[in-house]
């Protein structure tokens, strides 16, 4: 049945003759392990092409959804593995390309009549590079954006057409939606077309110049090793090993998905490892001559190599051998040296390492947030709207000149000049307890450095409260419960009775309500209102305008009003969103995954 079909198919297509060209080739020098690089590369190319094609089915090249769609791919069955294959397969391809080129150089396989085979192969090198460059930024990560930005600027610095080419590649002045669609076009349409065409030409020429049985002396054909299966088994064994490594890396390590792009974030750009040698080379030129490293040297090297078959022709056997050996040795040595110098420098760069560590923490957080769903605004919105991430940044910028935020282990944000209380755990029981303790109240990290240290409140805390020591725990519980802190909910519900008693104490006009408004009791004007003290709305209003009647009223010369003018937000220091983020952060009111954060390193 199958044989019949094969015969029929062969009658129509003549495929057996075609295949025979490939498989029946005589290997005059016998099968070789070194020659396996070619087939290895071809099959790796197929793997990368195939996985890329599959990934394409779920990728969205838009600034707001690219990261989300890649994250989605990672969540799909086998998605992470396929993406890993694509990612590591591409890198394996680059290594194989280097090895293959060096082998061809050493064996002088570029000689006549194979000049065009050599030239098309060489042309694939820059194409492969551009292929990698256009692929890395596609997930719209901070790292990818920074990379393409630098790479586009390098392109832009080349003479005459540079600026135009850059503008077209980026699709405008800065990286964004059009950059992603342009990169996708290059990465998924134009480059595959060009590379596939060149590869087909390259392989076709190889076959054309392979000797056929008829062209060889009969004694060489008789009993000679044939490509199939003598060379094939070597090819495939080597490919199995290489593919095995790539698959293993894809399965255990996986392709990274760094932080989504966010212009707020500071990122120190570095190229991928295979470009580090060019990056390092740049350092040895003054800025005005940088173009020598980024453009001139690569171009000259390329042209030299392209012309090599013709240069080789005029050299003697010996000179050619030396020349070829020197090229390979010089490239291998300088590539290795430059790459490792660069890696070493980065490794010892404390600032860079610290910033990478910081990014890693943020990345984990963003992945945890993304697990709970990515809103239509996109993944960078997750970063921008997360109190846990934005809180410390805002606090440092606007509050830390006077306030500290330091936990019980002494970790956190120190005040530049401690003029106001430590706000860590603001309105929690511990915090209220410290405030209502005569020593805690006057401590430097609480109200000791404020004008309030000499106010009526000081009189109340220092002289009044010790008299009611047995009621104090109730008072503390009640006041803290007003804040409705999410991390204290269980405690607050359990102590409902105590809190009710404490609230009575708060509302008694002989005690707190003498100076504070507490629900219906007391009046505003002396001390800040204690109704819902420390709650979301209280804090928001307080930060917006501590000079409001409900708070310090006209006595406020302690604290900046960050958003006193509701009707003209543009006149305020902070917008509502920032205040909300600060408030949520101070109240430790942020999303935490139920189960311990699922790291992407975990595999199904």
């Amino acid at each position, binding site marked *: 049945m199958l044989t019949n079909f094969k015969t029929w198919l062969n009658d129509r297509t003549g495929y057996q003759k075609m295949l025979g060209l490939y498989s029946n080739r005589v290997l005059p020098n016998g099968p070789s392990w070194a020659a396996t690089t070619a087939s290895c590369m071809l099959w790796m190319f197929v*793997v990368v092409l*195939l*996985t890329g094609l*599959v990934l394409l*089915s*779920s990728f*969205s090249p838009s600034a707001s*959804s690219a990261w*989300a*769609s890649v*994250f*989605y791919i990672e969540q*799909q*069955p*086998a*998605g992470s*593995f*396929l993406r890993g*294959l694509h990612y590591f397969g591409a890198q394996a391809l680059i290594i194989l390309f280097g090895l293959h080129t060096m082998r061809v150089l050493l064996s002088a396989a570029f000689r006549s009549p194979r000049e065009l085979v050599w030239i098309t192969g060489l042309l694939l090198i820059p194409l492969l590079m551009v292929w990698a460059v256009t692929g890395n930024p596609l997930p719209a990560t901070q790292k990818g954006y920074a990379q393409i930005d630098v790479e586009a600027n390098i392109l832009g610095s080349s003479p005459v057409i540079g600026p135009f080419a850059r503008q077209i590649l980026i699709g405008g002045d800065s990286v964004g939606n059009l950059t992603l669609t342009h990169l996708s076009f290059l990465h998924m349409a134009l480059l595959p077309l060009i590379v596939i065409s060149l590869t087909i030409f390259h392989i076709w020429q190889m076959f054309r110049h392979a000797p056929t049985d008829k062209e060889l002396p009969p004694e060489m054909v008789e009993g000679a090793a044939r490509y*199939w*299966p*003598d060379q*094939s*088994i070597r090819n*495939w*064994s080597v*490919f*199995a090993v290489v*593919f095995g490594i790539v*698959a293993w890396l894809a399965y255990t390590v996986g392709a990274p998905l760094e932080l989504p792009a966010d212009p707020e974030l500071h990122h120190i750009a570095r190229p991928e490892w295979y470009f580090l040698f060019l990056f390092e080379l740049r350092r040895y030129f003054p800025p005005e001559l940088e173009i020598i490293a980024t453009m001139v040297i690569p171009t000259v090297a390329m042209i030299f190599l392209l012309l090599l078959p013709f240069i080789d022709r005029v050299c003697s056997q010996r000179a050619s051998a030396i020349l070829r050996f020197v090229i390979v040795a010089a490239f291998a040595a300088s590539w290795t040296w430059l790459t490792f110098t660069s890696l070493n420098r980065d490794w010892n760069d404390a600032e860079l390492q610290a910033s990478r560590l910081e990014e890693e923490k943020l990345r984990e957080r963003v992945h945890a947030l993304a697990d*709970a*769903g*990515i*809103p*239509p605004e996109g993944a960078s919105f997750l970063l921008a709207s997360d109190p846990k991430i934005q809180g410390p940044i805002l606090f440092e910028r606007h509050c830390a000149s006077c306030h500290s935020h330091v936990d019980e282990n002494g970790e956190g944000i120190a005040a530049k000049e401690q003029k106001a209380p430590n706000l860590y755990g603001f309105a929690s029981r511990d915090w209220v307890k410290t405030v209502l303790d005569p020593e805690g109240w006057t401590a430097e990290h609480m109200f000791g450095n404020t004008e309030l240290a000499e106010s009526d409140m000081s009189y109340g805390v220092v002289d009044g409260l010790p008299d009611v020591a047995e009621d104090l725990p109730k008072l503390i519980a009640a006041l803290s419960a007003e804040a409705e802190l999410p991390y204290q909910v269980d405690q607050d519900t359990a102590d409902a009775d105590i809190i009710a008693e404490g609230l009575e104490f708060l509302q008694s006009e002989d005690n707190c309500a003498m100076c504070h408004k507490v629900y219906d009791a007391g009046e505003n004007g002396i001390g800040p209102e204690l109704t819902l003290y420390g709650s979301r709305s209280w804090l928001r209003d307080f930060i917006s305008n501590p000079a409001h009647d409900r708070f310090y009223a006209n006595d406020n010369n302690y604290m900046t009003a960050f958003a006193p003018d509701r009707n003209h937000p543009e006149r305020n220091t902070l917008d509502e969103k920032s205040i909300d983020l600060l408030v949520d952060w101070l109240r430790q009111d942020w999303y935490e995954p139920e189960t311990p954060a699922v790291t992407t390193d975990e595999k199904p």
Partner: protein
Amino acid sequence: MQRRTLLIRGCQAIAAAIMAVLFVPIGRFISAPLFRKSQSSSGAQRVAKLGQLEVGKPMQVPIIGKRQDGWTLYPDSVIGKVWLIRRNEEAENPEECKVDAYSAVCPHIGCGINHSPDKNHFICPCHGAVFDEQGAKMNLEEPGYNNPSPRGMDSLICKVVNSDDGDDFWVEVEYEQFQIGLSEQIKK
């Protein structure tokens, strides 16, 4: 010849192994949408205050919920529409208030069902399926009329509950999606 066969078998084995490592994941990835559970139910949800409903007069309300669309989560999106009909005047005891809820998705092929106040029945604008005020399939007296719907409108679990402060009533609906085109009501 022995050796040659052995080598060929070796090549085939390697090829098969690599293809398996490559194509099994590809198959799983591509077929993932087939196995994805649809999250059609969003639990009981307050859709209207009882006072908004007039007895016997259908009112359409949107169902708002989270909608996961591929990689995007829409936090408040309209995930469906529901027709509410209040059946009695009762407004004291929530247990005795009777409100019915019907999905506005036509069981024929899924258009949105309208209500015609003059004729006092539901009518689907796409292919003219008609339902009475109990959601049941109706046959019009017109010559040649054939109701295209395979079943009546899908009724949903609907309750009247006290509001949090206790002096108002909410209508609560458990929205659900059903397969279209079947004479039986089967959840999606």
